[in-house]
């Protein structure tokens, strides 16, 4: 297992893991905006930059992003060097100019001493930081209904042709993962609307709660040999059923703890 030094601490990290996990395991906080355990690392927000060196490099450092840098034996990592902090400050300053009204960016920038951007304010403030979490989770679901379109300053996240996306199943993974709540949806009993597309909801045959879209159930039905009926029952009822089965097998009555756990 590679042994490395992070901010003076000796850390062991398994082969094939990234520096970010090693830092966090050592209790060292690293800011990130585009990282999430459910998706592959991306390296887009550049907030997790750290300095890496080796004794034989004679003082020469290279700046890397911790989320994508594979751990190596013998490296010495500095997560708070002046140039690391300054790079993060500029990145946050730039994001604050883009998203001046976004609480997450305001708070993160504030923690680095940036309370007001030194750049030109975005005339059309947005909450989208283009972290790519939504498109990556959508790809991960196997749907790829949305993607980034255009490039450079004009880049944005959108469905194809900016029309209601034909492939979207209304699973809300994009909205759930969005760190700034930029992706909005409307939900009322029996109806859901996201990306301009309306979805009919499916009711749980047991409790009657509208918990999943019909399109979602259709999309997942048969995947990995799981029947559609499995998706039709809501998670809460499934858990209840499981608890009841477990209780029966254990030969006792159901306990309040299990009831609580099923919400």
């Amino acid at each position: 297992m590679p042994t490395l030094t992070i901010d003076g601490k000796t850390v062991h990290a398994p082969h094939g893991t990234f520096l970010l996990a090693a830092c966090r395991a050592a209790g060292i906080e690293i800011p990130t905006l585009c990282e999430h355990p459910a998706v592959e690392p991306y390296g887009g927000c550049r907030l997790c930059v750290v300095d890496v060196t080796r004794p034989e490099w004679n003082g020469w450092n290279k700046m890397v992003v911790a989320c994508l840098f594979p751990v190596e034996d013998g490296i010495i990592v500095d997560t708070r060097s002046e140039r690391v902090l300054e790079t993060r400050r500029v990145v946050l300053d730039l994001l604050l100019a883009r998203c001046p009204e976004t609480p997450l960016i305001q708070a993160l920038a504030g923690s680095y001493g940036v309370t007001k951007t030194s750049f030109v304010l975005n005339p059309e403030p947005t909450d989208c930081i283009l972290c790519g979490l939504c498109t990556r989770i959508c790809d991960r679901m196997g749907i790829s209904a949305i993607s980034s379109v255009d490039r450079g300053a004009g880049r944005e996240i959108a469905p194809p042709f900016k029309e209601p996306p034909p492939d979207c199943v209304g699973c809300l993974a994009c909205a759930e993962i969005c760190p700034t709540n930029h992706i909005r949806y409307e939900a009322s009993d029996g109806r859901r609307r996201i990306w301009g597309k309306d979805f009919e909801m499916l009711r749980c045959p047991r409790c009657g709660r509208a918990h999943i879209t019909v399109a979602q159930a259709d999309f997942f039905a048969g995947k990995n040999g799981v029947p559609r009926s499995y998706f039709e029952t809501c998670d809460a009822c499934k858990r209840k059923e499981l608890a009841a089965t477990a209780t029966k097998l254990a030969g006792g009555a159901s306990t309040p703890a299990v009831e609580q756990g099923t919400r």
Partner: protein
Amino acid sequence: MRIESHQQFDAAVEAARAAKLSKGREVWVCCGTGCLANGSRAVAKAFDERIEAEGLQASLGLYHKTTGCHGFCERGPLVVIQPEGLLYTKVKVTDVPEILEKTVRNGEAIPRLQYKDPVTKQAVAKYEDIPFYKHQIRVSMRNIGRVDPEDLDDALAHGAYSGLAKALFAMTPDQVIAEIEASGLRGRGGAGFATARKWKACRKAKGERKFVLCNGDEGDPGAFKDRSIMEGDPHSVIEGMIIGAYAIGAHEGYLYVRDEYPLAVVNLGKAIEAARLRGLLGANILGSGFDFDLRISRGGGAFVCGESSALMRSIEGRTGEPRAKYVHASDKGLFDLPTNLNNVETWSDVGAIIANGGAWFAGWGTPKSKGTKAFSLVGKVKNTGLIELPMGTTLRHIIEDIGGGILKDRPFKAVQTGGPSGGCLPADQLDLPVDYEVLSENGSMMGSGGMIVMDDRTCMVDVARYFLKFLCEESCGKCVPCREGLKQMLHIFEDLCAGRGRPGDIERIERLCHAMQLGSLCELGKSAPNPVLSTLRYFRHEYEAHIQDRACPAGMCRDLTAYEIVEEPCTGCHQCTRVCPTDAISGKPKQKHVIDPAKCISCGSCFDVCPEDCIRFFPKNGSKEAANAHADH
């Protein structure tokens, strides 16, 4: 016919040479993109028809062929009469009968069509005597302008694939890599990574399936060397790639060519087809037992796809965006398999190096940068075009001797090398020898070999703004420093050029530059500050003038500049009134003219044509005294 052994290859080359010698005289018409734009296809057709109609093949032994770019695009369409090597420039269809009658039949020169040296004003008859060509040493461009890119036999007669035959039949893959190492060849795409080291890493990488790729996504403004090589001598690129694949142990390759290079795509496609038919590509190449095949992948024209990891994503059919390269492409490249990517010019050098030996190539150059290098020489020089020179040649030699000096003999101001990732070097750096290290040490870069020469009528703040605008449009937008940083940097520069600069702007620019260099994901963002930092380094006073005095010392920023005609020595020649696009200049013939400031849009056209130098510019919003002070800088 398919060539199936080393012997058959030698015989095919002999036959091609003999066929070439049997043609007594030849007319070469350049059909590179530059000449085509000037109408060379019609000229070629006219020669073809005349030779056919008059039976000149039989009577005079005259043959005709079209070639790739000679590099002297400025003077196209170009026609060369062989074997004398007579060059005619700016040839029109109507000149064709005269050339055949006078020059081919009677051996008379046509002075009107000859090249006139802008320095000596003398006509130069022969191709090889023209200063633009005389100083050049061509390796990667060895056959451009000499071979018909659509004729494999013509290429064979000029030595194509002889390096491949040598590699396949007389060398082991390790010997090939050793020869490339001895040549000192470094990546011609700009970064200058040692080619042999790259090949070695990919050869060592574990995996049955490996790729060799060619980066033909040349996108720097003002650069066109790769295009000319692909169009004019596609076989040199293909030969290099087969040799590289043999050395690495790859059997598949892609040529990534931008779709804005239609002629390159067509000529490469034909060359691949021809090479396959003759057994130079595909299974069991030349009967050696080595298999390799090649496909063209057309790029959509995004500048960022010239970045290696973005290029590979694009070939895979995904969005052309870079990714972190902490794991090298030699281990995990295209489709996450071991991959070796080289630039067009690098591949083109390979065949010649194997045929002639590494020491031959290393005979040119500086201690760390060996061999020759192709450049696209453009901008305010008298001779623009494509050149190839030994590394270590001074900028002065390139600009003054080959380029023939600055247009209209105006003062030289700066030369931009390396495109949007490079920088500008001022007059006192003209004696620098051009190599990878020297250019980087002085704030510029080799890049893809673009060389843009600028005269005193160039505003360096505006130059930096131009490159920022280009990059702002071409950034993929994946990472924050590049996407948001370029947008903000461009804001600052647009303000500077419009007279809205504020104290502290230079510091703001520098802060942003450093963060972008350190924090960006790929080389596009990391090197984007170079044009800014190099102009700041050498022309800081111009930035200060824009901020403090609202003045553009070069008189190019229109919002900051006003023009007037001074009393003496305006002769009322009317030249300025003719070029003024807004009719802002009035005056009777032979009397002093006047510019109406309300109509003037500060385009400077009058300034550029005035034969008496009596038009001057001054800061629109500042005092004329301030303008004079800056003119003395």
